[in-house]
């Protein structure tokens, strides 16, 4: 279910690291909780964030939710497809529904995140 090579945050974002960069999205669990997504407020390229700061907001039929950056970095690309087809996040949260790419400020911050097995355990804890 949850790709082995991703990093996961407690707020249900995933990171797929490629060298000094990382692709970011929200997890399958997050998209299920949100329900049908109708709008993604994409940030501007060049925006810099610290860990735990808000990157963007995602709006579903139920609510508007912040997407936090699990690590510090700079936005270098956003998924333009989401403007017309935000439902990609529902359809393929770990693939085509990626939200943006970050240039990582400090790769050691990745150590604070969970790997797939830990994240799945974390989700089980939330169910109870």
């Amino acid at each position, binding site marked *: 279910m949850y790709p082995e090579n991703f990093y996961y945050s407690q707020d249900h974002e995933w990171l797929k690291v490629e060298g000094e960069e990382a692709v970011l999205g929200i997890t399958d669990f997050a998209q299920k*909780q949100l329900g*049908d997504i*109708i*709008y993604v407020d994409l940030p501007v390229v060049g925006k810099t964030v610290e860990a735990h700061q808000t990157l963007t907001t995602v709006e579903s*039929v*139920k*609510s508007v*939710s912040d997407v936090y950056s699990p690590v510090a970095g700079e936005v270098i690309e956003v998924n333009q497809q989401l403007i017309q087809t935000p439902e990609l996040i529902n359809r393929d949260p770990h693939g085509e529904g990626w939200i943006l790419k970050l240039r990582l400020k400090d790769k050691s911050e990745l150590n604070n995140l969970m790997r797939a097995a830990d994240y799945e355990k974390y989700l089980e804890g939330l169910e109870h």
Partner: protein
Amino acid sequence: MINVIREPLIFEISSPGKTAFKVPVLDVPEKKELLAGLPLRADIEGFPEVSETEITRHFTRLSQTNYCVDLGIYPLGSCTMKYNPKINEKVASLPGFTQAHPLAPEELVQGNLELMKTLEKLLLEITGMDAITLQPAAGAHGELTGMMLIRAYHQAQGNPRKYVLIPDSAHGTNPSSAHLCGYTVKEIKSNERGTVSVDDLAREMNEEVAALMLTNPNTLGVFESDICQIAELVHSKGGFLYMDGANLNALAGITRPGDLKVDVMHLNLHKTFSTPHGGGGPGSGPVAVKKILEPFLPVPVIEEIGGTYYLNYDRPQTIGRVRSFYGQFLVALKALAYILSLGPEGIKEMAETAVLNSNYIRKNLEGLYELKYDTPTLHECVFSDKYQREYGVTNLDISKRLLDYGLHPPTMSFPLIVHGALMIEPTETESRRDLDLFIEAMKAIAREAKENPDLLRTAPHITYVRRLDEVQAARNPILRWEK
């Protein structure tokens, strides 16, 4: 409901040349040249043309498809949709009020000013605060005004500060208000009781924090019992405690935010004090403050010298105007009528009954619907659809099915800390009989979820329109009629 046949759009009833009026034939020469050069529209393309009977019946039929507090319970948690007593409307429609010109000289509207001052005094008595403005046009506007006062104070000390702390169970408007005032919002986590985690607050509280915005009782209906400790913690770093007073109908007459060391709060006259809202509005969101923030209140401030009332604009530290004229005057009157008709004992009874009604529902439905937090609640209670999800039924399906029982559903999917939330607030205006109707419907739905989940997934069945495609409506709304 009487709707068997779908009412056409007014455009579909229209046919060319029909009108609802006839103008007499001109008995003087026509002088079109008088209008030369003026930007006059010849006609509006597609404008509906209907007769008087057609237009009357069209809108009357539409109005009969509506649901309102005069028809039944409206248990929207956090929205406090209570019955609007007719005496309020009667009072507010007296010609001395409706005909008063907002620019009339003060000496001609002494009575109106006196009533506003009277309401101010009563609200201060109920809240235990020191000073108040009636100007803000509704709750979120009150929040914004309150945050502007806080910013003005900090600015006057030389540093407006950077952060505002807000619990994760807050009303969605709280972060927006803080953000609009130039603050960065930091979220405080709830603990296992569903209240603010004092430890988390202590970690985040420092001298760059301008205020904590707290809703009490919070959106779970739980009283923040650590409020005195919370206030102390916020004050020790020079911050302010802002209280969202949206849920005041759980406290009024019993405890006072001012005594709980709250520095600034807004009240929702259109909720707690029974004036209409949600389409029947307008709202009204007075902001009450402690002495320390009084110099910054918006102008004008109503003052009294020897029995004469006047509007004071000469306030050097004021944040200025937040609303044209003096706020929602007629709404203020309705709230005043409500307070005076209840009296001090009645206000207390209002809060007690609101809490009793909510707990009556909670007690009757617990076990059938999940209570994620079993902490005792006041005026509202939050269930979830967890037990029903086993059968593939969600809070949306439950809400839609309630429509078939002729009842308005509760608030859904809020607060965010409860997945699949159903947030129920009956208010004090519901009778035991009406509460039982709601409870019986919810019990029947819990049974149906088990025995016939499809019935719920395809609900509603007997309403004017069936289930709407909310995703399409949000993604591709069609807001204009086209042929």
